[in-house]
């Protein structure tokens, strides 16, 4: 396809980041090729980990060995190129995936070997690394744990890192094994430094939120978007095209901040969004279209044909963002869509919200809310046919199963649309997180994370709620829904007994230091719950799923029927908690917990008589 205009070239480049053929844009090398072919710069931003990497090579010459890891598309190779440029002021040659540079530093000459394409670099013989490469790794190990003027940068995705070490010959030297255990330990524990000559920079540890912000800016703030003005006669860029509507929708502060919020949610649910994934998401959100041949608009004849059809709503942002234009397999392949589908946005609902969506335009009481929340549609994203469907539904004309399914799917899409365009205030006012699996996500973001970021503790009210959730899960008893203390109890047989009513101890929220607190180790990390008893403490990560579970149980859900997995998770936490807090039953008497109607407890002693 001959690409003509500037705008089309830009779309061609952006498309290269999308969910098209498997490996396109996966590698920095490929994007470079495409960008130079099109003669426009690739998407670029200063990677947040750049400083971490450059810090290992200070002008003083006190270098470190670096292992740069992260998933494919995270930007490892680009970072290596940048390092070479920063140190030598010349462009990396990048042949065979290895680069050697020499630097003169105040403390003498230093040699740096960068290995940024391990697949090309390592040639295995009989499934084992070749002698030559083992020797290189050995030199790296020597440098990491000893002295010397030679340093290494190894850029490798985390799976490959394991593969490389697995491919070591069985008689690999001790030092190399030490390098292996150190690196795997650092990686698994999420740490970075081992001594002062070895650093692991795991790009997956960079908060997804930062990546999202940078990617949004890199995509949306490109001068090439002038095409909407300059090439408005091209159906692809006309005001009624899906691309133009989606671009304008995506560019609203509500949607942009919503995406950043989702990226935050990714980090606190144990999903990391790599750069490539985020770019793919944005590219597809803008360019996706179910009628396009490979589901992403290609500039040229196809774009023109689709533009003429005038079915832009089919490719509305609230659909393409969730990958609705893509096939199931295509979505399942990509972590980012797996993450989004895990959230089930739009799949859950409440009576109030459905009432608003369905009867809002017909009910005087709901009208104001409806106009504010649902009717607002500045960029014509709503399915024009939906009102008709709604009418048929209300009249009871929808009888066939197919039509019911269609109606429900459209209703879900409508919820997603409203969710995306809602402001923060509206999210709270209409409890919009209730349409997702995480009903309490707003509380988590606003009431837990926000205060922590400001260096404060979350409000007591929320701590009490958590305490109450913990009490109900850990004792199996219906204790008060606003607790002032965490009760630690065990069963007579197992500590994880479904009903654990042998009292061990209680941790007061008001004690000094408090028996229950939420803290955060460093910015961007998942907050931790700290439980303290005497001078012992037990910590666990308060991820969003755990928070959600605690809140729902505190609100009255039955722990084991709501989520067996979460319940098992909390049981194992309890086991560790009791072990680490070193709580034992008294040797003189056992105290049984008896619950009053109000949910407060009474302790009934059972004496163990001396024989």
């Amino acid at each position, binding site marked *: 396809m001959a690409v003509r205009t500037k705008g089309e070239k830009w779309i061609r480049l952006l498309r290269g980041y999308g969910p098209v053929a498997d490996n396109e844009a996966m590698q920095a090398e490929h994007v470079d090729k495409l960008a130079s072919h099109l003669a426009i710069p690739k998407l670029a931003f200063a990677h947040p980990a750049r400083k971490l990497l450059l810090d290992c090579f200070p002008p003083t010459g006190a270098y470190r060995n670096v292992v740069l890891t992260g998933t494919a598309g995270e930007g490892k190779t680009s970072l290596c190129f940048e390092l070479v440029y920063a140190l030598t002021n010349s462009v990396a040659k990048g042949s065979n995936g290895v680069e050697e540079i020499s630097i003169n530093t105040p403390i003498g000459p230093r040699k740096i070997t960068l290995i940024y394409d391990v697949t090309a670099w390592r040639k295995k013989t009989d499934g084992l690394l070749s002698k030559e490469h083992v020797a290189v790794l050995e030199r790296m190990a020597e440098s990491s744990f000893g002295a010397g003027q030679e340093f290494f940068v190894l850029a490798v995705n985390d799976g490959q890192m394991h593969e490389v070490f697995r491919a070591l010959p069985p008689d690999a030297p001790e030092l190399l094994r030490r390098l292996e255990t150190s690196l795997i330990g650092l990686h*698994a524990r999420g740490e970075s430094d081992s001594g002062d000559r070895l650093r692991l920079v795991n790009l997956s540890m960079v908060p997804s939120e930062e990546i999202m912000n940078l990617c949004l800016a890199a995509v949306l703030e490109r001068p090439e978007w002038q095409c909407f003005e300059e090439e408005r006669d091209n159906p692809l860029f006309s005001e009624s095209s899906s691309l133009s509507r989606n671009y304008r929708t995506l560019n609203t502060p509500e949607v942009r901040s919503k995406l950043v919020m989702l990226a935050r949610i990714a980090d606190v649910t144990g999903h990391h969004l790599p750069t490539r994934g985020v770019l793919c998401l944005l590219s597809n959100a803008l360019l996706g279209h179910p009628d396009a041949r490979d589901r992403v608009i290609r500039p040229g004849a196809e774009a023109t044909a689709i533009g003429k059809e005038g079915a832009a709503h089919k490719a509305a942002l609230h659909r393409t963002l969730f990958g609705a234009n893509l096939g199931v397999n295509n979505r399942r392949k990509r972590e980012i869509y797996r993450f989004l589908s895990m959230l089930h946005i739009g799949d859950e609902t409440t009576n109030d919200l459905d009432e608003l969506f369905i009867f809002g335009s017909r009910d005087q009481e709901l009208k104001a809310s409806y106009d504010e929340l649902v009717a607002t549609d500045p960029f014509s994203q709503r399915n024009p046919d939906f009102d008709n469907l709604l009418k048929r539904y209300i009249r009871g004309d929808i009888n066939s199963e197919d039509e019911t399914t269609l109606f429900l799917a459209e209703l879900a899409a409508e919820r997603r649309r409203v969710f995306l365009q809602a402001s923060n205030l509206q999210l709270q006012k209409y409890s919009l997180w209730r349409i997702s699996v995480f009903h309490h996500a707003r509380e988590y973001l606003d009431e837990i994370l926000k205060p922590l970021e400001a260096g404060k503790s979350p409000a007591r009210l929320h701590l009490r709620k958590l305490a109450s959730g913990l009490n109900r899960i850990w004792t199996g008893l219906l204790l008060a829904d606003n607790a002032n203390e965490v009760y630690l109890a*065990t069963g007579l047989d197992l500590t994880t007994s479904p009903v654990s009513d042998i009292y061990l101890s209680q941790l007061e929220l008001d004690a000094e230091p408090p028996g229950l607190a939420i803290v955060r180790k460093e910015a961007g990390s998942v907050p931790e719950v700290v439980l303290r008893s005497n001078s012992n403490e037990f910590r666990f990560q308060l991820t969003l799923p755990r928070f959600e579970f605690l809140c729902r149980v505190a609100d009255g859900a039955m722990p084991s029927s709501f989520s067996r997995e979460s319940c*098992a*998770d909390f049981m194992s936490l309890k086991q*560790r908690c009791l072990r680490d807090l070193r709580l034992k039953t008294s*040797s003189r008497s056992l105290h049984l917990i008896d619950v009053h109607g109000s949910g407060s407890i009474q302790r009934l002693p059972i004496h163990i008589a001396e024989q």
Partner: protein
Amino acid sequence: MIDPTNTEPYFGSKDRNEAWISEAIWGHRLERQPFSALMLEFLGMAEGMFRQDKLLADTLPGENPEYVANRSLQLRNLLFNNPRMEEILRNAHGSDEDAWVEWLRVMKEGASLGEHLAADFSYLRGRFDTFGELVSVIRLLRRITVDPGSERSWTTQFLFPIGPAALYEAILEKGDGFERTRRVFTRTGEIAYLMLSRASEPLRAKIRERLAPSFNPATSRNRLVMRLISSPIPDRGDSKGGTYLPYKRHPAYERLAEDVAAVLCLKLPDQDSFQYLQPLLGFHLYLYGIETANCWLGDCRLPSITCEILAPRSDLVRKAAVGSYLQNDGLGAMAVRKFLKTNVFSDLDLAKTLENPALDELAKKEYLAEHLVRTVSLKKDMEATDAKMLTEKFYNFANRLYRDGTADGMTALATGCGLVSKRGTNRYRYAPTDELLRALVLANVRTPMEESAFLRHLHSRYRMVVGPKEAKAELLTYQFDETDFKRNRDRFAQHLIGMGLAQRMSDSCTYIMNPMESQT
């Protein structure tokens, strides 16, 4: 492993066995029992040995390690043979005196304490301030009944082993007294004990150290139980023994001991480790069973175990898991045949006699019948007209004996521990439960282990096949499908992540973690 130098003959009488075939291969004996009885029997024997100061002392197949098990009859009457307690408490309308008098009378009539103890529970009046207090303790203890709701009689009801006094043997009422039953405690738990007792000493020392506190009579939980027993130590039965494990050394012994030691070393609070030991005991006994059978057939390795991680619909993994189970299930019967061929029918004198033209058919048959008694202690007299018919009948008999005994016992072990199930289908297959997977992670993972390394470990250690790499090496091409096994591996990771036993770093890297190892 099956070399004669590695075995010793059974020391005791074989009078009560129909024949000595499975017993010679796997021991006396692996037999179906309620799964919970496995660990209780194991702990019971360990506790008995602990009292003799012989906990996990080395044993040999030709020895007869005996022990005395607790009976705790007063406790058991109070818990399981005391149906009117609640009613009496209610009817006394707050009068403590009335309640005690009535209840003591009822117990005197109804309780069953054998020859050595009187049905007199008045000692409890001195120990509890009120009748209500006694009732609340009994209620509390009843809550930890093992297999609640089972229809077993009161003499075969058990408590969760919260202390030595709560560990007692299964008995049956007989006349005025009791007799020991081997239907509930079928010796399979004792086999597990004997296996551990033949592991290497450093491991045994580790297990001994960690297991001993569970047998300490001074813990608060045990003292709670002892409050219901009149004497300072629980009443006990006669000395018992007679359990036989044929091999001096066996890879299964060390494997079991390593896993048991690993779980005990996690220092879980109170008796929490039992929760994980229970499936592990069953799992390792099952492995011992199939490994031994395989060895009799000439391959002294574990046979491979293809595991389906419960899939929503049938795929090639499920087919392979069904096939793998069936194959391993068939090993035992073949091992029995092989054993008989080697130990019974390869006898030179027998061959000579059967081929002797001077003897008539009846005489040959008689000779064979005697030979069977000599070699495998056959008790049953089989009707047959000639030796050939007898041979055939005998093979069938041996096969049936194996099917009803050891084979059934192994199925019970495999399903009980969660390795094998019919979930979602109508056929048995290897489909490990989350509980078993958790126990395996706790026993095998010290520091975070990359997923594929863990799968390799499961394969090299237990020959379990989950992921495509191991499957490719183990399966025939037509059984193998890369995509299906990849999905199987993904489900495996998903389950472990859900249980908090794994952490996904990226698409290409997941760490399996032992949550109990993060002790500082």
